[in-house]
């Protein structure tokens, strides 16, 4: 007897990471044949929720979760992704789990290959039975047909357009016999517009086949187009659950972003905002996952310029492109001089410094002393801390040490000594070392990416205060990239929101939540042009 109309119910789900509450009393119910959208910024708790649903090891290693998950009528506690798969919960990954050298059929049947019995291998273990390609092909054909995909099931995946690959991923999931619930994790992020609209059509088909869909996205128009219900998460809390016909794009945008903003007292003294110091024209940066496609930007001397936007939209790519870390094209002008692209050395020579978002990967020499970490870029590019003998050079230890001690004091870097290696420092102190290195270069423009990611509250404040102080006292131009909108709004003079590798719009920190929300979701320009049409 099946008296429960819901396929999946998540009741009062809460989760703590090391005393840090990341999910709080989330309730979510999905019916068979329903598309349920989950909407939220980065860090709103979407991925944690999905990790719980799929029983990822991260969850169990950090003390499990609170609350109850009910699948059909049974209360379940999923221990591993494989178990989730067995229970009929499927996931369409953001990154494709496809083997290029295999045919579509082989990919659809990956590790679920059909074997067959015959005289010889009847007595062998399953692993040693030959594959039944005929049956596998039939199954694959069926799954592809369900999605309305006419492509030959024996074609190799290599070289296919990305949209097709996404469909193959989906076909694999719906080929699983007992599939009840399918999770789409930002499936349209990598697709072209027409591919995305095909995907939405396919989702409707799957829904009509009686499968429930959880649709994780930040594209508001897609939500409005296909979702039956929307749940909005923000900072680990459930903000609202809305029916499709009861809401609109504007409301969703506001719900997604809205929060109380702590107004930082803006200094009463007028800032001296000068001429354009940095201008970027038609910038393209090939940073995987954070691509920039034809972006224009102008920064004036003395500004703190904020760059915001959702993950994967490209905001991180700007600073990395200017510094020449990823392949870049376009035109960048610093104080009227053209910057040589793809050349970190030239950027450093033009007095640009960069505090990377990838602190441990790119920002630090983890097994080297604090003092050397602070000094090294200046040693290599400015000839600092170096004693020159005629035939050779030697690092000037004394100078390096006194400078490091100075910085340690100034930025309050908590360490045993300036000789300590940076690996064991806390995230906040590591970040301060990175900033110290950038400051040692005495830059005219300072790029800071995700300055407060993964550091504690106290360190956060010091880092942000330092930036404001540098800007105020030295007139240093700062370009700050951050996923934390609140932080940008508290510190910056101007905020550019990046969407799909371009500037969606530039706002003052006091602009309304709706505007920020629409821009982050990439809906602002569309809405405006619609508005113009009405006019």
């Amino acid at each position, binding site marked *: 007897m099946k008296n429960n109309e819901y396929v999946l119910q998540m009741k009062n789900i809460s989760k703590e990471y090391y005393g840090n509450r990341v999910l709080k009393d989330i309730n979510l119910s999905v019916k068979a044949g329903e598309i349920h959208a989950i909407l939220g910024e980065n860090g709103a708790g979407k991925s944690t929720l999905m990790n719980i649903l799929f029983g990822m090891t991260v969850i169990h290693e950090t003390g499990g979760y609170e609350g109850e998950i009910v699948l059909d009528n049974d209360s379940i506690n999923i221990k591993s992704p494989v178990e989730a798969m067995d229970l009929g919960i499927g996931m369409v990954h953001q990154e494709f789990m496809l083997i290029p050298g295999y045919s579509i059929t082989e990919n659809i049947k990956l590790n679920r290959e059909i074997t067959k019995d015959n005289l010889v291998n009847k007595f062998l273990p399953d692993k040693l039975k030959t594959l039944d390609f005929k049956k596998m092909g039939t199954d694959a054909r069926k799954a592809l047909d369900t999605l309305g995909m006419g492509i030959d099931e024996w074609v190799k995946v290599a070289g296919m357009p990305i949209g097709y690959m996404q469909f193959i991923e989906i076909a694999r999931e719906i080929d699983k016999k007992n599939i009840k619930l399918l999770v789409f994790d930002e499936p349209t992020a990598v697709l072209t517009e027409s591919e995305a609209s095909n995907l939405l059509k396919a989702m409707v088909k799957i829904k009509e086949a009686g499968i429930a869909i959880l649709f994780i996205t930040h594209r508001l128009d897609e939500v409005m187009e296909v979702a039956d219900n929307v749940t909005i998460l923000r900072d680990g809390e459930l903000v609202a659950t809305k029916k499709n016909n009861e809401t609109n794009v504007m409301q969703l945008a506001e719900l997604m972003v809205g929060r109380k903003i702590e107004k930082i007292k803006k200094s009463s003294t007028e800032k001296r905002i000068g001429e354009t110091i940095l201008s970027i024209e038609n910038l393209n940066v090939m940073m995987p996952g954070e691509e920039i496609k034809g972006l224009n930007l102008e920064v004036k001397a003395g500004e703190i310029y904020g760059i915001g936007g959702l993950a994967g939209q490209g905001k991180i790519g700007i600073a990395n492109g200017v510094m020449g870390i990823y392949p870049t094209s376009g035109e960048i002008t610093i104080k009227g001089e053209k910057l040589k692209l793809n050349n970190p050395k030239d950027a450093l020579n033009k007095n640009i410094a960069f505090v990377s978002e990838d602190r441990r990967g790119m920002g*630090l*020499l983890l097994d*080297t002393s604090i003092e050397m970490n602070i000094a*090294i870029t200046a040693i290599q*590019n400015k000839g600092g801390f170096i004693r020159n003998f005629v035939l050779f050079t*030697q690092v000037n230890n004394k100078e390096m040490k006194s400078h490091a001690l100075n910085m340690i004091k100034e930025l309050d870097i908590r360490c045993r000594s300036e000789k300590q290696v940076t690996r064991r420092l806390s995230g906040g102190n590591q970040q301060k070392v990175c900033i110290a290195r950038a400051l040692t270069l005495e830059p005219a423009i300072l790029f800071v990416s995700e300055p407060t990611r993964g550091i504690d509250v106290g360190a956060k404040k010091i880092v942000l205060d330092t930036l404001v102080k540098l800007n105020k006292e030295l007139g240093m131009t700062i370009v700050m990239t951050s996923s934390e909108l609140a932080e940008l709004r508290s510190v910056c003079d101007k905020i550019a929101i990046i969407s799909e590798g371009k500037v969606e719009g530039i706002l003052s920190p006091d602009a309304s939540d709706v505007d920020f929300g629409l821009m982050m979701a990439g809906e602002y320009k569309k809405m405006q042009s619609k508005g113009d049409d009405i006019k």
Partner: protein
Amino acid sequence: MMEKINRFYKSFGLPRLIIASFLAILSVTAVVVGLPIGDLFSAILVRFGMHGILVLAMVPAIIAGIGLNFGLPLGILCGLLGGLISIELDLKGFAGFFTAIIIAMPLAAIVGWAYGWLLNRVKGSEMMVATYAGFSAVSIMSIGWLILPLKSPEFAWPIGKGIRTTIALVDRYERVLNDFWDFTLFAESDKLRLLVPTGSILFVLFACLLMWMFLRSRVGVAMRAAGDNPKFAEASGINVNKSRIVGTMLSTILGSIGIIVFNQSFSFIQLYQAPMFMGFGAVAAILIGGASVKKASISNVLIGTLLFQGMLVVSLPVANIIMTLESLAEISRIIISNGIILYALTQVSGGE
């Protein structure tokens, strides 16, 4: 207390601990059975001087990020050629020795540059490519030794073509370094008489000093950063590929000098297949000294060479007393040197 032991154990490393205790046991046995301690120590010192530079050659390679330089034979071949040319010029003593080095160094620099260029193209597989680059170079140079137009009478076989397999250095630069300022301690005691090859030890220490200074120069600091974290280095305006080439060149040059030092102490130049596995010995020594595939220091060189050579020196006579089997020492060398390399490979995280 336990924690202290634990920390000591961790910083010292399991394999070093095993080898150090093995050496300790061997030494105690040697004393107990009444072997001439002085002779053993002299032998260790001689071998330290012999191998020190070759082991030091690993340092720039590891620090620059190309990993264990199994392609050391490339440098060694340049050194051998330098040595042969110095004999061909009919030079003797220090003149012969230093001429060999002066000829070998630019050769090694060129070879090292090309080798570095190659390794930049095979990032991630450097060790394997280096091994086979070394092997192929040794076999192509075997052809070279057959057909090189070197005419010195010392090179000729009684019959047949090509250069001899081993060339005696008796009248050339045999032990020029070893005998320089050498002195004997406890000369009156049979058991303790200890001959110190001052010159060769000073030479090794001087080379180490130069290397230490290089690592503290601007180029050295850049190289270290490039090896430690290429992404960081690139962002700091360091040319990673160039740094790697510098490291490879230095390693190759040291290899070429190392073999000349080795030869003067050994009194012979060995050609053909002899250099094939010389890189492996040097790699094993520095690993025993506590280096890893990514990290190495001068102290690793000194400790490693002493431990590894010490073990080889002491194990032979001790093994002879126990089993009268000469092969035991060679076998333990094979097992230990390859074992330590395997251990180092399992410690490399990544590849994922």
